[in-house]
C-alpha cells in the first residue's frame, strides 16, 4: 500500500474525499486487507482520542480572548523612553562644580600659604653676632616698608666701610 493510498484512506475516514475518490477508496478497502486493517486502526485511534477533547471550550468569545492576549503583549512590551533634553544649566553644572571645587581649593591653599609662610611684614627679627671686641650692633625693622637695618659699632680702625676707592668717607 503506497503512502498516497494511506493518506487517501485517512481522508476517506474523515469524510473529506470527493465522491469519485471515495468510491475508489471503498473499492480498495474491498480488495485490500491491509487497507481494511489500517482503517480499523484509524477507527480505534479516534475512539481512544474521543474523550480528550471534550469540555475544552473557551469561557468567552474567541475575539475577546485574543484581544486580551494582544493587550497583554502590548502592555509588557518596552515603551520607548522619551528623549531626555539636556539643559544648558546641566552642561554648565558639569563644568562649574569641579571649577568651583578647584577655586575653593585654591582659596584654601592661598589662606594656608599666607598662614604658614611669614609675610613680608612679619619678618622675624634677625639674629646678630658681633665678632670684634668693643663692638655692638643694633637692628631696626620697618615691617611695612620691608626693610631691615643692621648697624654695627666697631673700632674706627676696623670699620670696613671707612674707605672707597682709596678715599676716606665721612665719619
Amino acid at each position, binding site marked *: 500500500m503506497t503512502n498516497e493510498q494511506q493518506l487517501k484512506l485517512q481522508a476517506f475516514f474523515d469524510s473529506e474525499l470527493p465522491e469519485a475518490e471515495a468510491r475508489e477508496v471503498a473499492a480498495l478497502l474491498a480488495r485490500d486487507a491491509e487497507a481494511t486493517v489500517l482503517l480499523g486502526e484509524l477507527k480505534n485511534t479516534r475512539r481512544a482520542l474521543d474523550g480528550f477533547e471534550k469540555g475544552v471550550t473557551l469561557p468567552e468569545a474567541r475575539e475577546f480572548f485574543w484581544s486580551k492576549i494582544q493587550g497583554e503583549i502590548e502592555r509588557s512590551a518596552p515603551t520607548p523612553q522619551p528623549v531626555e533634553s539636556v539643559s544648558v544649566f546641566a552642561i554648565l553644572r*558639569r*563644568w562649574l*562644580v*569641579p*571649577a568651583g*571645587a*578647584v577655586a575653593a*581649593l*585654591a582659596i584654601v*591653599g592661598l589662606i594656608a*600659604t599666607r598662614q604658614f609662610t*611669614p609675610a*613680608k611684614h612679619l*619678618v*622675624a*627679627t*634677625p*639674629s*646678630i*653676632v*658681633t*665678632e*670684634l671686641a668693643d*663692638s655692638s*650692633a643694633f637692628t*631696626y625693622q*620697618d615691617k*611695612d*616698608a*620691608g*626693610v*631691615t*637695618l*643692621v*648697624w*654695627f*659699632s*666697631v673700632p*674706627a*680702625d*676696623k*670699620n*670696613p*666701610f*671707612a*674707605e*672707597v*676707592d682709596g*678715599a676716606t*668717607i*665721612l*665719619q
Partner: protein
Amino acid sequence: MRTALAPVTRLVWICAMALLLCAAGTKSLAADADLKLEAQLVIGTNDAKPPDSSKYKPVDADVTKKLKSLPLKWSNYFVVSSRKFSVPKGEEKTEKLGDCDVKVKNLGQSQVVITISGKKGTIGTTTGELSKGQLFVTGANETNLFVVLKQVD
C-alpha cells in the same frame, strides 16, 4: 542615585588636580631655587649730587623709598659699586664691595646668613630672612657708606 562621574567631569577633575600639583611643585622648586641677589655699596649724602658725580648713580626709586624709611641721617643715596650674584641653597658666596666683603649663605626658604668683613676681619654676622622686595641694609659707625642687599629676578 548617580555615583559615577561623567567622563568629561572626570577629565576636568584630573586636569585640576594636575594643575594644583604643578603649582605646588613650582612653588616648592621656586622656594629651593638659587637665591639671586644684588649687593650694592651705597653712599648717603645730604647733597643733591654725589661726592663724585661722574662715577656714582642714584639708587633705584624703590630702594630710595625704603632707605628713607630708615633712621638714617642722609637724604640722597648713590650706588658706588654693585654686584649681582646667585647663591645655591646650602652654599655661600662672597662678593667684594670696596673694602668690604659681603658673604651670603643661602639657608633656603629665603633665609640667609650675611657676614660682613673688612681688611681687619669679620665685624659681624646676621641671620634672617631676605624675601623678594625686602631690603637688608648694613653699615657701621657714622660712616655714610653702607651695603644694601636685595633679591633680584
